[in-house]
């Protein structure tokens, strides 16, 4: 049984139907890249997966448990699905370690000492252990994003969603964040990434999903998908980004 099972997902904003029936199954440890044109519904899809948006139709299961439709509280959701945003969204009034410790302490009620230990472990993982007492404003974009990843990991989610996590970064800072994601993938973390980094999608992901007009238009292993696209839409998309 797949770790994540999405069934016939529909979502509209007013008259605009953004997701028109998405079916997708993701195995534990799988790294899936979602690509597609701007407006094709990639972010909306990701935001439905952690219920930041409520879809109109369809179901989402995680490890055989219903996740959508209020079946899980935000607290439970956060221990199943983590998310990293394009714009980091670190808490500016808290230091790095406080950012990472907040949710375990407040939501999971982990004792502070233990929460700190977990936080240090996660910050170590993303190479930010030396900056523990810095405030977000004192960090580069790449460093902030790495802290944001550590913050999401501290809730020990089963899946990590990443929505264009390198798009707001200066080109020279992209590598350090991708490197962290790559090491997470190597550790067996289940990742769903919306990305414009095609090289990364090709090299690191096990599967690439091409979204077009609210559908999964084409999906498959990265090698075949990029070299032998089956549909003209995907060929065009690949041509447009190269």
């Amino acid at each position, binding site marked *: 049984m797949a770790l994540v099972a999405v069934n016939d997902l529909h979502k509209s904003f007013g008259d605009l139907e953004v997701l028109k029936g998405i079916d997708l199954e993701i195995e534990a440890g799988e790294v899936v890249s979602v690509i597609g044109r701007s407006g094709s519904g990639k972010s909306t899809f990701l935001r439905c997966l952690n219920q930041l948006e409520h879809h109109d139709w369809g179901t989402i299961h995680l490890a055989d448990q219903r996740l959508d439709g209020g079946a899980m509280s935000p607290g*439970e*959701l956060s221990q199943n699905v*983590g998310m990293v945003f394009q714009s980091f969204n*670190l808490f500016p009034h808290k230091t790095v370690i406080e950012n990472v410790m907040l949710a375990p302490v*407040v939501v999971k009620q982990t004792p502070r000492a233990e929460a700190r230990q977990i936080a240090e472990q996660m910050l170590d993982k993303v190479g930010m252990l030396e900056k523990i007492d810095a405030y977000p404003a004192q960090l580069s974009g790449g460093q902030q994003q790495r802290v944001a990843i550590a913050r999401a990991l501290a809730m020990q989610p089963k899946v990590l969603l990443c929505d264009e996590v390198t798009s707001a970064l200066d080109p020279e800072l992209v590598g350090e964040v991708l490197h962290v994601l790559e090491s997470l993938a190597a550790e067996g973390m289940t990742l769903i990434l919306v990305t414009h980094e095609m090289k990364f999608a090709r090299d690191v992901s096990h599967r690439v999903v091409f979204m077009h007009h609210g559908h999964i238009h084409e999906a498959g292993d990265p090698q075949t998908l990029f070299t032998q696209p089956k549909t003209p839409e995907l060929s065009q998309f690949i041509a447009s980004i190269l």
Partner: protein
Amino acid sequence: MTDFTLWDIVRNLLLAGRWTVVLSLIAFAGGACVGLMLTLLRMGGLWPIRWLVRLYVDLFQGTPLLMQLFLAYFGAAVLGFDISAWTAASVALTLFTSAFLCDIWRGCVEAVPSGQWQAARVLGLNYLQSMRHVILPQALRLAVPPTVGFSVQVIKGTALASVIGFVELTKAGTMLNNAAFAPFTIFALVALGYFILCYPLSRYARYLERKLYGAGSR
């Protein structure tokens, strides 16, 4: 009538001025507590509650404080409550203050970027936890200058409590003038009294504002 020395006048005004300070403090502290509750309800409650809070704020912002004082004082009497001028003034000023602070603070909460709410939500924090740990600390930073600025309005607002017979700075001035008939001196001193209370606060508010926006980054 001429047996009032300047010192007598000043001494009496200072004594009454204490009540201006006390009433201001009560109004401000009470208004802050009620205002905070209203802000939370306004931002997070169900829509009928949000609507009620908005109505409340609009009512208090859209009517003169003087009428609110009259209603609190005489209205309570009509309803059969025998309340003192003290109570009436405290209640009316507290409600008045809470309405304005609620509006100021709502603006500050809304000024916190939506990404902060989303980040908190995704980490599993519920509404109150998000407010407490993520949104309010940031909103607070934004709120301090306008809140301190508004405290000046509260102090000046207490002057109106004189019309329901509450003896504070303004009422004391009127009473002294009835006895001593030195309107220019007396009311100049009264005005000076308010100025001494308000000026440091407005200076401080301006300083805080410069510190917040001038220094640039967070």
